[in-house]
């Protein structure tokens, strides 16, 4: 399992892996927003957490279609399906590798974008924390979409369409926890704990669903 994790990490960081494209996309999406809504710093600081979250959500979807498709192209998916380890565990590890390579950089880059958005230090910390906790759920939900669309030649866009509706709870609670940290009357902990619960829930459902889909999609 460690070997699989390291292999996936290496594959995504070395040339042609495309792990950095996610960050670039994230930066670009967030940078485009001020052109759309105008450079009003007060407005930007108010909508900042939401913008950073949406940007991260979209960027996290970007590399998803390659999650299993790359393995299918070079035939290693069949090996993964046939090995003795439970497939659910293998998929969990693959999700973790995907998260470490593609999503964790987004979390690390988010404070910088928070500065661009004129957010306060507390808000930046809250967004980073909620992203850190909530983004694994995106990877787990995405794994189902990626597994469902693995045999499709142009599955990328379809994966995003299938996955986005399911990620909305993550977005809702992530953003509401970030806002609760800044605005006084709302408590921070309840939405944050629900976010943790969502992540753990999808950590179970996601790999199970993906394993089911991969077994059925096999040729």
């Amino acid at each position, binding site marked *: 399992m460690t070997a699989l994790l390291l292999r996936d990490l290496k594959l995504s960081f070395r040339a042609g892996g495309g792990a950095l494209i996610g960050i670039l996309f994230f930066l670009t999406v967030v940078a485009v927003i001020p052109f759309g809504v105008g450079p009003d710093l007060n407005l930007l600081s108010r909508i900042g957490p939401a913008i950073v979250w949406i940007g991260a959500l979209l960027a996290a979807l970007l590399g998803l279609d390659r999650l299993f498709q790359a393995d299918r192209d070079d035939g290693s998916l069949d090996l993964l399906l046939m090995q003795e380890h439970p497939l659910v565990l293998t998929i969990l590890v693959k999700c973790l590798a995907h998260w470490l390579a593609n999503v964790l950089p987004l979390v690390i880059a988010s404070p910088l974008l928070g500065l661009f958005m004129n957010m306060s230090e507390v808000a930046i910390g809250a967004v980073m924390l909620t992203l850190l906790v909530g983004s694994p759920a995106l990877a787990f939900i995405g794994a189902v979409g990626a597994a469902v669309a693995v045999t499709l030649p142009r599955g990328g866009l*379809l994966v995003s369409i299938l996955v986005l509706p399911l990620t909305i709870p993550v977005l809702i609670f992530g953003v509401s926890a970030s806002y609760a940290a800044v605005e006084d009357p709302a408590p921070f902990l309840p939405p944050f704990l629900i976010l943790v619960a969502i992540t753990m829930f999808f950590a179970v*459902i996601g790999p199970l*669903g993906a394993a*089911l889909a991969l077994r*059925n999609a096999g040729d």
Partner: protein
Amino acid sequence: MTESLAIRKFSDLANPTRFLALAERLLPWMAGLCCLLFAAGLYLAFTTEGDYQQGDTVRIMYIHVPAAWLSMMCYSVMALSAIGTLVWRHPLADVSHKAAAPLGAAFTLIALVTGSLWGKPMWGTWWVWDARLTSVFILFLMYLGIIALNRAMDDPSKAARVSSVLILVGFVNIPIIKFSVDWWNTLHQPASVIRMGGPTIDGEFLRPLLVMAMAYTLLFFTLHITAMRNEIWRRRIATQRRLAARTASREV
């Protein structure tokens, strides 16, 4: 005794030809009964008294509420069929959830549009992003995603199995829709018909509502069986065509 009979009956259905024969016999009755119920329901809906506050706009309820119920029931039928596809490999289950997806999308669209038409005079806005409306909108998007996934694959049995997984994962949305009005404080009113301690809605409104709900349910099953029959025929024609093409190429 009854149980063994039921199982025999159910496995009988696995044979598409038997299903087609059954559908042939059932459909006229179901369609006729559905028309009668709709006539009765619409008659009741237009002749009962209006609400003292909402006036005549309350009649939108008789279209809106059953459609919303059916949009959730349709997804549940699809989820059951998805289990049937994945667990029992029931040959009709994949036909069933493929046929139900467009129906579900249509009912959800009706619920959304009529709700929006009702919201304008009552709430003063076409659309609010409250929990119930948002989750139903997500349901609509999921129906469209499932249809898109079904259309994206050319092998029907593989498409059915893969979309069953998606249907089952998406089922988490159904309890969210059902309880969204209780969990969050929303503009949409909480449940007033199916609730603990009996309905809070007045009998004057309840009667047409229930008749319309039965009419909608029958409409769904009529259309569902028709769509399943069409899908079976479509697959048979596709197989025949492929066979014909093969023999034709052999003759040349």
